[in-house]
């Protein structure tokens, strides 16, 4: 037992004495979170907005006037037909549109309840959500004015939001679970495999093998530090999300840690497998980058919507642990779902981890070749 502890301490020395490893460990997640966070959620200005006005009355003119006064929007001159609006969206000329139905004012006047439609380009989900919020606020402002003037009878304007192209708003805060999957992969798969292969390259692995220390313990000693470090990274990302990006973690934090640990075991096993079949640090790095990171970026769904994948490729994500991890974290962290809702995904992830761990342990060489 003492041997194991000394070994683990040695691994930490390696990490803390290598500036590059430290940078990857703590610089990378910070940079990613901040980059994704701020690059995607910055304030929007001068949005090209079109109005489709079937009503043409005092109420709609009033609202249009408010829109023109706003610095957020740049109103297209002539009101459009519905078809022209769709074309303008496709051509990228407008980012959002406000549609007043023909009976808008009539409904408002008779029933006290008017409906209008906000249409936004959902392919840029962050901008779309901001636009929707602004437009709703402006309409809400008008409603308050009406109510103040009318006194007793409350008017109600109900905006109906419609997102083109990306109705479920995939991608807004989804990058956080994505970054989590990516960072855990880097730390567990890449760093672990590189640290083992480095011992092969330097010749220290030979000495370790020719010692009473059990080969299996070498693996454990290698894995434990990176398990700890990746949990640290996980915590760092959560803290940055909550305190810097003001993201609310809706689900159970304990559940998140639990699922992450399962995912980490899968990543560590992959790292061990890679270190088994490669003999140089560069190759290990390349294999884990190309073989693990790229699929994670492409196929988990956090960068590109999976719906856009052509037929057979759509099956690939199912094979990736990172895909299942991403689904669970998204559900728990952003939607606030409990274990009951994600037990199936968690079970698949657990199965994958156990299988990978088994394969990597079976393949571990107790000799050099």
């Amino acid at each position, binding site marked *: 037992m003492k041997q194991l502890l000394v070994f683990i301490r*040695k691994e930490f020395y*390696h990490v803390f004495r290598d500036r590059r490893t430290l940078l990857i460990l703590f610089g990378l997640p910070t940079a990613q979170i901040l980059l994704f966070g701020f690059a995607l959620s910055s304030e929007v200005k001068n949005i090209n907005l079109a109005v489709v006005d079937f009503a043409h009355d005092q109420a709609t003119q009033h609202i249009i006037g408010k829109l023109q006064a706003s610095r957020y929007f740049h109103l297209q001159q002539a009101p459009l037909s519905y078809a022209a609006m769709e074309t303008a969206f496709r051509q990228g000329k407008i980012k959002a549109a406000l549609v007043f139905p023909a009976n808008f004012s009539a409904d408002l006047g008779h029933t006290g309840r008017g409906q209008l439609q906000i249409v936004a380009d959902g392919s840029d989900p962050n901008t779309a959500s901001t636009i929707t919020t602004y437009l709703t606020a402006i309409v809400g402002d008008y409603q308050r004015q009406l109510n103040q003037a009318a006194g007793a009878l409350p008017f109600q304007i109900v905006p109906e939001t419609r997102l083109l192209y990306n109705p479920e708003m995939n991608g807004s805060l989804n990058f956080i679970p994505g970054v989590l999957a990516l960072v855990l992969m880097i730390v567990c798969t890449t760093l672990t495999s590189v640290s083992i292969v480095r011992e092969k390259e*330097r010749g220290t692995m*030979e000495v370790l*093998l020719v*010692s009473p*220390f059990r080969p299996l313990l070498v693996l454990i000693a290698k894995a434990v530090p990176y398990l700890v470090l990746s949990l640290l990274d996980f915590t760092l990302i959560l803290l940055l999300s909550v305190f810097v990006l003001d993201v609310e973690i809706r689900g159970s934090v304990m559940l998140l840690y639990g699922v992450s640990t399962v995912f980490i075991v899968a990543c560590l096993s992959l790292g061990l497998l890679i270190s088994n079949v490669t003999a140089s640090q560069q190759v290990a790095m390349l294999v884990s980058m190309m073989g693990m990171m790229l699929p994670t970026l492409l196929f988990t769904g956090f960068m590109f919507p999976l719906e856009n994948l052509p037929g057979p490729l759509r099956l690939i994500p199912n094979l990736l642990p990172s895909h299942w991890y991403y689904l669970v974290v998204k559900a728990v962290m952003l939607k606030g779902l409990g274990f009951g809702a994600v037990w199936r995904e968690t079970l698949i992830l657990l199965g994958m981890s156990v299988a990978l761990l088994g394969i990597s342990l079976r393949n571990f060489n107790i*000799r050099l070749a």
Partner: protein
Amino acid sequence: MDAVTLEHITKTYEKGTVRAVEDVSFAVKPGELFGLIGPDGAGKTSIFRILTTLLLADSGTATVGGHDVRTDYQAIRNTVGYMPGRFSLYQDLTVQENLNFFATLFDTTIAANYALIKDIYEQIEPFRDRRAGKLSGGMKQKLALCCALIHKPTVLFLDEPTTGVDAVSRKEFWAMLGQLRQQGITILVSTPYMDEATLCERIALLQGGKILSIDTPDNIVRAYPHPLFAVKTDAVHSLLHDLRAYTPVLSSYAFGEFVHVAFRQNQPNNDAALRDYLRARQHTGIVVKPIAPTIEDRFIELMTANSTAAHGN
């Protein structure tokens, strides 16, 4: 019981196309300082890796301390010390940390076996807080030896410990091995430097995966079959050419400023005849003197005798 035995060990790489070790058999007695002497590619490292249980031989059996290298590998790993060809230290750990780590790995402490490494460790102790990567070649070598010795192994394997190390450090290193021998540790050491062979009790000359000869250095030198002469003139290069053109000469190899010459037939007037021949060839400053052969002479002799069939290589 022999400390190390090999019987008909063969090892090939790349699906049998590269024969690294071919039918090698020898035994090392307890407490012996045994040398594997040969150039790169002779099979030294493969033999060491087979004995340290890092590689499996294709065929043949081998034991270390009575344990079979194939089935009893854990028992061997518990008792041997091994210093691979490269200095296998953690460059980013300090001298002290390296030593501590290896001591713990072998389930012992520095204090427990300090007597064994004391003489060596004292030389590097002033640098105990320096990282191993910042040590000189000689220092690294000493630290690596300390790490390999820290658990008081019964058999110590040193794979080319002096390669790439300067002559001064090499001398010191061999002096340390001499001291360790006094402690009763069996030592197997490999080296490409022929002059180091004489520092071992027994040696195996290796070439192309095969053993050329196994014996004490004295016996190996004594087995050299011809009287040997050292020849020198003022023009080394043309001397070599002329010697090769001279039919009575069997072999001529440059050894520093001299050329070592053996004759086909053992005639009493060989040296006088050679002198005459060289004079006729306009050589000046001619020296021809009988000398005792060295390990290297014997190695060359065995090597060329062995490769007359398979020319080249």
